[in-house]
């Protein structure tokens, strides 16, 4: 397939869609341009052969524009575990349709950061061969734009210190300090430095709280169960709660 020839066939509108959506808090992971009368049979095979397009396990799709094969695509994507996104802004794959001026040989290519990517793999080669052999020339251009949501993780503003389940203090993170707290099992020593917090010493037996890495992001916690003590980084909310 002549990639330069392919890209020259593309009209500019589909190229703009992904660029517009990056500003909505999503990261563009590239666009797949597919020329075929039967995108509903080809797209799942391409997706299977390009697993890196699904960086996480979220699989939500949306149509940015009406598509002549919309029902077929929806049906096959549901079967492959994708779900319809209530809003295009939340979809990991946004599909749009454009009509080329003239029918051309069926083909596909993947563009990321404005550059055509080399995606030659045995699996994709078979897909392409089947398209050339079985599909007629088409002017149907399907653009699948891939996105991953940025996870907004914020550095905390202070460490809320809890003893016996009650908040006793909020330690600001912007200046270094060391605090000692009397606890049920004796004493616990906490240090703040470089906007990070950690337990320096503890009178508990196993010292697991001392071996926990420092915490700095909103929602992160250090718990010392024997001392009935915990601290939580607070500030702009990154997560609702923490497990593990």
């Amino acid at each position, binding site marked *: 397939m002549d990639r330069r020839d392919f890209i020259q066939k593309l009209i500019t509108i589909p190229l703009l869609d992904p660029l517009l959506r990056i500003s909505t808090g999503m990261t563009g992971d590239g666009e797949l341009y597919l020329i075929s009368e039967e995108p509903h049979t080809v797209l799942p095979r391409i997706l299977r052969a390009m697993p890196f397009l699904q960086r996480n396990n979220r699989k939500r799709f949306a149509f940015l524009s009406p598509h002549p094969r919309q029902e077929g695509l929806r049906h096959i994507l549901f079967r492959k575990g994708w779900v319809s996104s209530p809003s295009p802004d939340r979809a990991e794959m946004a599909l749009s349709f454009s009509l080329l001026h003239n029918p051309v040989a069926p083909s596909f290519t993947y563009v990321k950061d404005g550059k055509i990517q080399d995606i030659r793999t045995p699996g994709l080669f078979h897909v392409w061969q089947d398209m050339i052999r079985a599909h007629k020339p088409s002017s149907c251009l399907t653009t699948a734009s891939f996105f991953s949501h940025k996870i907004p993780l914020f550095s905390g503003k202070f460490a809320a210190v809890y003893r016996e*389940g009650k908040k006793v203090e909020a330690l600001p993170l912007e200046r270094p300090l060391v605090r000692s707290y009397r606890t049920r099992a004796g004493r616990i020593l906490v240090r703040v430095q470089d906007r990070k917090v950690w337990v320096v010493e503890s009178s508990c037996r196993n010292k697991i709280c001392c071996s926990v890495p420092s915490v700095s992001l909103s929602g992160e916690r250090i*718990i010392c169960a024997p001392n009935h003590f915990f601290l939580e980084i607070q500030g702009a909310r990154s997560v609702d709660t923490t497990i593990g």
Partner: protein
Amino acid sequence: LLIPACRVAEKWHSSTFLFFDTICEIKAFCTQPAFLASEEEVRMIFSETEKHFAPGAKDFSSPIILNLFHRALDVYNNTGGCFDITVGPLSRAWGFRTGTPHVAHPEQIAEALSHVGMDKITEEGARLLLQPGMELDWGGIAKGLGIDLASRALIRSVITRGFINAGGDLYCWGENPDNQAWQVGIKHPRAGGFLGVLALSDKGAATTGDYQRFFMEEGVRHHHVFDPKTGLPSRGKQSVTVVGPETLLCDALSTAVFVSREPKAILDKYPDYGAIIVDSDGRISLVGKIADFRKIE
């Protein structure tokens, strides 16, 4: 005479308290009186759960004990014994029961293993009969039960949005204050920060990790999750988080998957559950039904 309607506004409330030897957190959208009542209800349920399933508890005939025993036995059978509530003698041999963890001698491990296996427990009437030397450890399932009971009670009391998190075992329902699924950060098993973020609604989650209770000896990490077949701390994984409809099962399955060498075979039997597995090299894999997990890259 006009009497102004006195309506108590619903808003977000949260509180933290200590139970199950860890921090428990409740967050709920309701009125202040409803939240105080909920808090009381959760404390009562946790207190009852803690009383029945405390280490060394000798109650083998209460309905709550028998019911949880049968749930645990199902998981034991479905996981090829990877989840087993009879690992108490192993915890004792390794010193985790007494608070003085140490590497157990091979003879101690062999002796402990002779008392391990749920198939050694028999039922007579409505009572469990344990063989001499057996010791139950409900730690891998009781907290999940407490959370399920407490969250169902709050949902029944018409609290439509909230979560209960007891030291990493969690159930959340409805939507968060941003009207989205609850964003749950999973602690990284080694580094600071999060491994990733789960978006959950009407789901439970629980994590088993080698970093929760452990000691280091000669550079080797010895933790509290034992392989019931070898009597040694299970190797090959740093953490396992299981997500699914019931926290009780998430709790038990996170231990089973942590111990098992065939996580997929286990989760195939629980099609509504999925696991986020971090192996000993820090690689993350997803097995089973994980609807919405984003890695921190």
